[in-house]
Structures are given as structure tokens and as C-alpha cells.
């Protein structure tokens, strides 16, 4: 009897133990993955965050990181690197005018939201914060375009991202629309337009360096015919920025082209044909039928290019070495130059500021534009 009771007790204990195991199975099975993710993602992130708050020193037997608080951030935002990173503003009257107009537009939008019965707290929250951030970035950019001012790596990066993304989208869209037509040779051109995407950015940079050389290289006769034999792209800040932008657009337009071409395949031909029968112009067909179908893919495409564009480094590094001066230097290249000279703290601080910038802009984009593009608002 005792034996039976013991066995039952043991069986009960075993069942409870198995139950306990089952309840924690998810945790047990997930724990290795979580630990790996923590090790590979969080640890480097925390490490680089600490690096951004430290200064590297070399001492007998190795190197040491000395905690310096926010000194690296202070150097970038207020200290000796301020001009390099944030540029130097001028009293640009037209920048203030543009800012005023932008503020007015934002005000009108806010007012309409308020009249539509939105909560005052929501009105004071994300839209207002987003609007203020947009104004701040606009001022940061426009106030550095006035003669006598200079762009920092922040403005240069914003220029690459905004101008690059817009041009890549428009060119990609144009090429996709062309290749979607039933024209002879479209299959050949589809392949041809995708080729730049297959070339490594370093290769693209070296190729454009050769092409933009007005003194030697394959395009010298062309430059001479245009009267540009005495001109150097690298001596002119905007010439150099344009050279980098052209290279970047050449490399990444195929990406926009592929995505938009795929999206075009989803447009129902019956609707297009029906519109044509009803006498709609080609522009009306595009505006009211084709473009709405392209919007979700377009919004995602732009988001991807925005994030990628902020990380541009190969082209300005190889093509212009960040020059003339620092005119073509992106934030990533700025961080790379700092790292290369063992200013690890500044390089890490730049990395985190870039992460903050990308997070802000993509959050605003995700909050304002993505839902509308996907028809969720």
C-alpha cells in the first residue's frame, strides 16, 4: 500500500515537473536565440555607445578607454568639429522666408486637423513634434546654402539622400513605364538597366573618377569640346557634389526601376483599357489608375532608399576623397575618417547621431506617409 502511495506521489511529482517544463518550454527553447541576438546586436551597440562616451588612450601594454561623458558629442555639436558636422549658417533671408512659408503650411494643416475634431493632445503630440523637426531640418539645410556659409557633413548627407532618392525614383519610374510598354527590345533594355546594380560601389566610384577626369581618361575629347578641359570637378564644391550624386543615381536607379516595374505588373489592364475607351488622356490614366497601384511599393521603395542613402560612403571616398575640403563628405565618411585616425570616440558619437537622425526621419515618414500610401488612412 505504502509502495503504491509512494509511486503515486512520485508520479504526481513527475507530472508536476513535466507540467512545469511544458510551461517554460517556450522560454527554454527561445533562450539560446535571445542570448545570441543579445550578444550579436545589443553588446556591440552598448560597446559602441560606451565608446562614444570615451576617449581612447594608449598606455604601456595596450590601450585604455577613458570615460569622458558627453565630450565627444559636445565636440561635434558645439566644439571644434561643429563647423565640420553642422556647417556654418549665415543670415540667409530667403531661408527664413522659406521657413516661414513652411511654418504657415504646417499651421494650416494643424488647424484643419483641429477643426476636424482631433484631440488637442494629439495635435500637440506627434504632428507638432514632427512639424517642428521638419522645420529644424529645413532650417539646418537652407541656412547653409547662402553665399558665405558652408555645408557640414549633415547637410551634405541630407542633400545626397533627398536629391538622390528623388532622382532615382523619377528616373526609375520613367524607365519602368518605358519597359512596361510593348516596344521592341524591352527585354534587352530591362537587363541593361539592371546592370549598374550588379557593380560594386567601389568599382562605380573608380569608374566615375575616370570619367569625370577632364585632364585624362576616355571622356577628355568630350570635355574639351564642351570647353571644360581646364575645369576640375574636385575643385568646385557643387561640381564635386553633383559628380557624387550622378554616380549614386546611376548605381541605384536600377533598384527603383526593378521595384516599380514589378509594381506595374500588378496594374489591371482592363481598367487602363476601359479608361482609354472612355477617352482618358495618358496622363489621366497614369494619375488616376496606374499611380495609385504604384503608391504602396513606391512608399516602401523610398523608405529603403532613404535609409540606405544616409549610409553613402564609397562614392565620395573614392571619387573625391570627401573634397574639395569637406564639401562631399557624408556623415558616414566623416565617421570613417575619425575612426581611421583612431578618434574612436568621435567616430562612435557620429554613428549614434546618424542613427538618431535616420530614426527620426524614418519614423516621421512611417507615421505620415506610409499609412496614406498604403491606403490605411
Amino acid at each position: 500500500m505504502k509502495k503504491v502511495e509512494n509511486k503515486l506521489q512520485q508520479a504526481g511529482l513527475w507530472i508536476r515537473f513535466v507540467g512545469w517544463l511544458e510551461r517554460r518550454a517556450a522560454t527554454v527553447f527561445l533562450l539560446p536565440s535571445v542570448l545570441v541576438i543579445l550578444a550579436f546586436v545589443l553588446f556591440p551597440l552598448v560597446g559602441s555607445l560606451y565608446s562614444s562616451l570615451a576617449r581612447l588612450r594608449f598606455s604601456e601594454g595596450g590601450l585604455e578607454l577613458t570615460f569622458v561623458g558627453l565630450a565627444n558629442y559636445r565636440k561635434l555639436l558645439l566644439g571644434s568639429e561643429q563647423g565640420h558636422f553642422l556647417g556654418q549658417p549665415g543670415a540667409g533671408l530667403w531661408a527664413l522666408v522659406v521657413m516661414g512659408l513652411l511654418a504657415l503650411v504646417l499651421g494650416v494643416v494643424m488647424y484643419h486637423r483641429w477643426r476636424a475634431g482631433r484631440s488637442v493632445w494629439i495635435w500637440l503630440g506627434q504632428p507638432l513634434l514632427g512639424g517642428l523637426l521638419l522645420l529644424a531640418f529645413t532650417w539646418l539645410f537652407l541656412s547653409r546654402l547662402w553665399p558665405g556659409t558652408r555645408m557640414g557633413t549633415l547637410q551634405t548627407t541630407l542633400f545626397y539622400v533627398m536629391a538622390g532618392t528623388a532622382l532615382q525614383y523619377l528616373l526609375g519610374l520613367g524607365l519602368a513605364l518605358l519597359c512596361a510598354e510593348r516596344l521592341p527590345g524591352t527585354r534587352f533594355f530591362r537587363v541593361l538597366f539592371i546592370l549598374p546594380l550588379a557593380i560594386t560601389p567601389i568599382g562605380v566610384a573608380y569608374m566615375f573618377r575616370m570619367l569625370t577626369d577632364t585632364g585624362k581618361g576616355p571622356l577628355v575629347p568630350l570635355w574639351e569640346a564642351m570647353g571644360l578641359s581646364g575645369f576640375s570637378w574636385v575643385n568646385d564644391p557643387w561640381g564635386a557634389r553633383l559628380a557624387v550624386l550622378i554616380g549614386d543615381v546611376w548605381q541605384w536607379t536600377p533598384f527603383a526601376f526593378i521595384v516599380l516595374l514589378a509594381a506595374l505588373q500588378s496594374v489591371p489592364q482592363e481598367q487602363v483599357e476601359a479608361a482609354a475607351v472612355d477617352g482618358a488622356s495618358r496622363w489621366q490614366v497614369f494619375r488616376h489608375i496606374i499611380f495609385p497601384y504604384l503608391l504602396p511599393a513606391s512608399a516602401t521603395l523610398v523608405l529603403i532608399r532613404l535609409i540606405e542613402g544616409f549610409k553613402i560612403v564609397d562614392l565620395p571616398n573614392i571619387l573625391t576623397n570627401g573634397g574639395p575640403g569637406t564639401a562631399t563628405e557624408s556623415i558616414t565618411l566623416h565617421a570613417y575618417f575619425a575612426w581611421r585616425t583612431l578618434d574612436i570616440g568621435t567616430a562612435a558619437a557620429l554613428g549614434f547621431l546618424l542613427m538618431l537622425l535616420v530614426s527620426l526621419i524614418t519614423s516621421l515618414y512611417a507615421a505620415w506617409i506610409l499609412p496614406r500610401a498604403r491606403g490605411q488612412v
Partner: protein
Amino acid sequence: MIPNLARLFFLVLFLVPALAQTGRFQGVSINVLTFTGPQIAEPLRRHAAAFERATGAKVNVTVVPFSDLYQQILTDATTGTNSYDAWIFAPQWMADFAPAGIMEDLTARVRADTAIQWSDIGVFFREFSALYGGKILTIPLDGDFQMVYYRTDVLRQLGLQPPQTWDDYLNIAQRANGRDMNGDGRPDFGSCIAKKRNAQSYWMFMSILGGYVQTQGTRQGAFFDTRNMQPLVKNQAFAEALRVYKETTRFGPPDELNLDVGDTRGLFTSGRCALSIDWGDIGPLSIDPQTSKVKDLVGAVILPGSRRILDRNTGNLVNCNAQLCPHAINGVNRAPYAAFGGWSGGINAKAAAAKKDAAYALFSYMSQPAQSNKDVTIGITGFNPYRVSQFRDIQTWVAAGFSEAGARNYLTAIQQSLNSPNMVLDLRIPKAQQYQQVVLDRVLSEYLAGQLTIAQAQEQIHNGWEEITNAEGRQKQLQAYLASLGIAGR
């Protein structure tokens, strides 16, 4: 039968080759790091092959761009990776390398080495390039001074003398600019100076600045005030040097801001430039029949100076007089700049003993007169004269292709610089690379590109240098600076 065959097989496979290889460093493999070159890397590879044949050692040469060399050495040696057993680098970086404990003390090896002929190496290179903290830490392989090169034929046609002052330099550059100097029908350039960022631009600028700020001899220093470590930047002399530096761009190639010394040397030897600032390399490169169109048409002169110099009390430019400029000649204060200090070989203190021995033997072999005295006459090597015998023996230079007058002219310009009591020593204090290669180099490039005015450039350099000094500790940096000038014990 089988055991005998096995023995024979073993004998053929292992024992015979082992007996055939009797080198001193048989089985020792060393990794040496230097910059991409072709300068420095070319003679290193060439001598490494001969060294391998003579000693049985295996020498693996790794090259990185110059702008990466400093951090590659430091990160590799301080993080315990120790991929490299030896390096050929800039001796001014010893101020960072030695305190980090990564440099092998070579004093005993040098003392015991008669083949290296240590006393034949110029005193300056023994003291400045090799010695740190009273110990020999590097083997000099190169001697570095900046000079001005000019086209003798062009100056003759223009009826002008080699430049004595920087105003003379600008005048010659302006007069020569646009002339066809190599007979190809295209207008050429009055001045070619390497102004590319992340390259050699800041040395070129310091060559111009020296004559304006240093007047009382080497120990006065040209970078900082020796009383308080304040940068000698926010003054009229620095502003004038900036003005001259930018003015030269008017008479240079259109893409001058993107040229490094490799480019400007190529332009000069192809006959496209009337003037250039450079180390000793253009001299030997100009006699290379494969690439040069200016053989026997090149003159070299000690760096020009100024008749107006810095009054350190007021920050103003004042006229030279006997008291203010005791080393002036014809009223011109000149301060030749020992830029860089000359490529030198150093050995990783963490390397295995056999590797250290092999690395030292390699550097000793490269530095010995039999190899070195020939190397300095070849333009591609990047090695310039640094031994007494190299200045004394004109016939070596003549045999290499120089005319006797050309060789004398070239060597005299270097010797005048080397013997000048007002020589400007390159910066050799902790974070020297941050002061020069980061702050000064970046601001100069922004100024040349028109992003900054003279006043803004001065402000930025001053603030950047002060930031580093304050972070490192002003007193510590001042002591290191004084020691580097020979004022305190090194």
C-alpha cells in the same frame, strides 16, 4: 629492402633540403608593414628578396595607404593581435608608439652592429629619427627635408633667380604660368604643390609657414609657444602663410587640390611645372630616362623664407633685423623644415626573439651603405640622403645619371637645410598625428576649397589644437614638446 628504401626516401625528402638550407634565419618568417608606395615598398620588397636568399628568412611585406598606417600599427600592436613583427613608418609617431610599449629597444643591437656604420648616419637622423627617451628605437632608412625645385631653363628664359622669399616664389610662378615648358603645345603651370587632403598637404603648408614664425633657431619651435603650449596660429604670420599657400593654387593645375606627391612629381618630371615644393625625391626622379623630360634642367634650393617675421609678443609681422633674425642671410629669415623625419624601421616588442633578430638584420642590411648609398640615387625608392658618405661621394650620383653640377646643386640644398641652425623640427609629441593629419589637414583643405576664410581657418586650427592639448594635459604636452626640441632631456 623496404626499410632501406624508407630510409632513403626520408633522407631525400627531409634531410637533404635541410642540409642545403644553411641560412642564419632558416625557418623564420617575418611580417613587415609599410605604406602602399611604390616608394618605400619597392626597395623593401627588392631587398627582402635578396635578404631571403642570403639568410633563409621569409619576409612578407604588407602595404596599406599612408592615411591608414598609423592606426594599423597601433591597433594591431596594442590589441594583442601582433600580425606584424616590424614596420617602416614615420619616426614622429614614436611619441605615441613608445609610451604604448610596442617598440623594441634596439640600442644594444646597434652598438654591436659594425656593418650598419651608425656613425656614418647624419647626427640629426640619429638623434631625431632614431632616438626616443634615450633609447634607439628605429633604424633610419631615409632622410627628409623639404626644398623648392625649379626649372633652370625656365628661370633663365625669364631672367629670374631661384626664389629667396615666398613672394619671389609667387612672382616666378605667376611669370611662368601658362608657358609651354615641355614643348607639347599646351600651356603648363607655374607651381605644382601636393594639396590633396589625407595626404601631404599640411607638410607643404608648414614649409611655407616656418620662415615666418621661427627665427631664433631650432629650439624656438614653430608649432607652439614654448612657454604655455599655446598654438602659434592666431597671428599675422600664420595668416600670411595661408594667403601665400592659397595664392599658389592660382598658378597650379586645375585639379591641384586632389593631387598628392606622386601626381606632382609626375607633372614636374614630365616638364609641366616651373616650381614645386617636395622632399628630396624629385632630384633622382628627374634623371630617370624612362619618365623624365627635365634631365639636367632641375635646380633645388633651400626653402624660401621671409623678410617679415612674427613678433610673438604682439602677433604681428615685423621687419627682420639682426636681433630678431640672427640666422637671416641677406635679410631673409629661412627655416628649412625637416618634414616627416625620414622613413624608419621599427620592431614590435611583442614579436618572438628570432623574428626580432631577423627584422633587425633586414633593416640593418637595408640601411648599410652598400644598399642605401645606391637606393638614395633611385627616384622610385622614396629614400633620400641621410648618411655622411652619401653627401661626400659625388661620383655615386654621377654614376646614377646626375651631371656633376646637378648633383652638387641637389646635395647642397639638402646639406644647407640639414646644417641650418634654424631648422624646423617636425612635431613629435603624443597625438602629433591628431594635431597635423586630422585638424590641420582638414582645415587646410576646407580653406583651400573656399569653405573657410583665413580668420575662420585660424580659429578652427587653434580650437582644434587646444582641444587636443587640454584633453591630453597641457603640462604633459608642453614637456613633450620641449623635449622634442631638445630643451629638456629626451
